């Protein structure tokens, strides 16, 4: 059994780039991916800015090296592209060399296709190539699509706990390694933009009509995004002799048990999740050099999260920023994408800016970092992700010693 969890590969795609290198360049140059919705039809197009990947499903299919007839849902395609990059950076050529699994996560699954064809699905008289997407509606289908393309067979699962999903996928994968069930696991999440989520968040009245402003006292809500992020995490055995990008040193999940969608004002669940992550890692809050916050830009999240951070860090909060103003809120994928940003922060000793921030929140002791900071040694990064249903998760990434 491995006591340590090594990160050897990572891959991502989002509104700020089709891979890790492009994403890093956008982060360094404060290039936000938030803009106008183009790829899907919605009457809210002109009203709400989004973090959209500017590629059609056909283009994504080609990007993933698939034939046109192999096209799948946008969720599955984004996931595959990120997984391919993660395997490449991990230098994995023979997937069968070790016991390898995949733990993916998604909140929309194949909804992006279902919402276009629902009435055709129900009409026996109609038929078309879209029939193959009926089964793809299920969240697990995107995971099986990815697994089949890269040849993973030993263990597959999919998690859906709303916006903390991929943090939980990473956590479950790490525990499978620690229990000696697998040697290495592809972990992360994928979610595509859908009318379903756009309208859901519209109905909740938590979408900002401008670019989102996490931790600003004048914040008006979040911007939706889409994307996928995946890590390859490995045991000591399989990682031997490989370049280690970072270690996953801590993780914790808890439940706020306060309200179906809203976080508690004191952030009790968030506090517990972070506390558990510290316990697993053996680190103290003073060891943390940077916090990549969940920071969605909604009134309730930022207050709840900020209050919990203030409490846990005794108001002595290290550099902190939310990168949601770059990518938008990528829902199930956000924890993995921000996990990648956390590893990049360690690798390049950088702190990425919290864009669009002007006015401090009087309730909180800290102000986020608003310009790119370089040079400070980053050894440990805390990354938070919270979801509907009170689901709160925290991950700690550490420099490999």
């Amino acid at each position, binding site marked *: 059994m491995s006591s340590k969890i090594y990160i050897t590969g990572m891959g991502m795609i989002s509104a700020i780039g089709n891979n890790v290198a492009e994403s890093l360049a956008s982060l360094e140059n404060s290039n936000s991916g938030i803009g106008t919705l183009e790829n899907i039809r919605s009457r809210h197009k002109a009203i709400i800015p989004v973090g959209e990947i500017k590629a059609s499903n056909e283009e994504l299919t080609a990007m993933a090296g698939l034939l046109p007839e192999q096209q799948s849902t946008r969720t599955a395609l984004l996931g595959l592209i990120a997984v391919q990059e993660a395997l490449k950076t991990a230098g994995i050529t023979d997937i069968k060399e070790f016991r390898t699994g995949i733990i993916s996560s998604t909140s929309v699954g194949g909804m992006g296709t279902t919402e276009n064809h629902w009435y055709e699905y129900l009409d026996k008289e109609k038929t078309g190539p879209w029939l193959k997407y009926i089964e793809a509606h299920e969240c697990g289908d995107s995971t099986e699509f990815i697994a089949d393309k890269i040849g993973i067979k030993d263990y597959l699962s999919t998690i859906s706990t709303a916006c903390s999903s991929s943090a939980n996928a990473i956590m479950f994968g790490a525990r499978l390694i620690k229990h000696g069930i697998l040697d290495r696991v592809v972990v992360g999440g994928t979610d595509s933009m859908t009318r379903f989520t756009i309208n859901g968040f519209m109905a909740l009245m938590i979408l900002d009509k401008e670019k989102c402003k996490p931790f600003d006292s004048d914040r008006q809500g979040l911007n939706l995004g889409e994307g996928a992020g995946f890590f390859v995490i490995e045991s000591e055995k399989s990682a031997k002799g490989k370049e280690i990008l970072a270690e996953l040193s801590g993780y914790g999940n808890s439940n706020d048990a306060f*309200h179906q969608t809203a976080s508690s004002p004191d952030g009790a669940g968030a506090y517990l999740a972070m506390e558990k992550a510290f316990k697993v890692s053996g680190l103290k809050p003073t060891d943390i050099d940077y916090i990549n916050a969940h920071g969605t830009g909604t009134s309730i999240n930022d207050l709840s999260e900020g209050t919990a951070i203030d409490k846990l860090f005794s108001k002595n909060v290290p550099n902190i920023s939310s990168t949601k103003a770059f990518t938008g809120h990528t829902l199930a994928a956000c924890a993995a994408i921000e996990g990648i940003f956390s590893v990049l922060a360690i690798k390049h000793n950088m702190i990425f800016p919290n864009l669009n921030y002007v006015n401090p929140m009087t309730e909180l002791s800290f102000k986020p970092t608003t310009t790119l900071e370089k040079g400070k040694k980053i050894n440990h990064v805390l990354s938070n992700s919270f979801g509907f249903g009170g689901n709160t998760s925290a991950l700690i990434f550490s420099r490999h010693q």
Partner: protein
Amino acid sequence: MDALIDQLKGEIIEQLNLEDLKKEDIDNEAPLFGEGLGLDSIDALELIVLLEKNYGIKVANPADGKKIFQSIRTMAEFIEANKK
């Protein structure tokens, strides 16, 4: 105003699935949220849609709901004042 209040009660019972309640169970002045009917923030969003759909009144900021939905009477008064 009384007719509007009566109509509103029926609409609220339907929109919020308060099947066990009758119109006469809802006090015109009692608070809708918290102590009174025990409604929550999701109900407030449901009521905002009710105003838009049935009365053509748009409430852009959910925080405004607090004042509007204090009681059935304040809600009716708001509708009277803003109806097009």
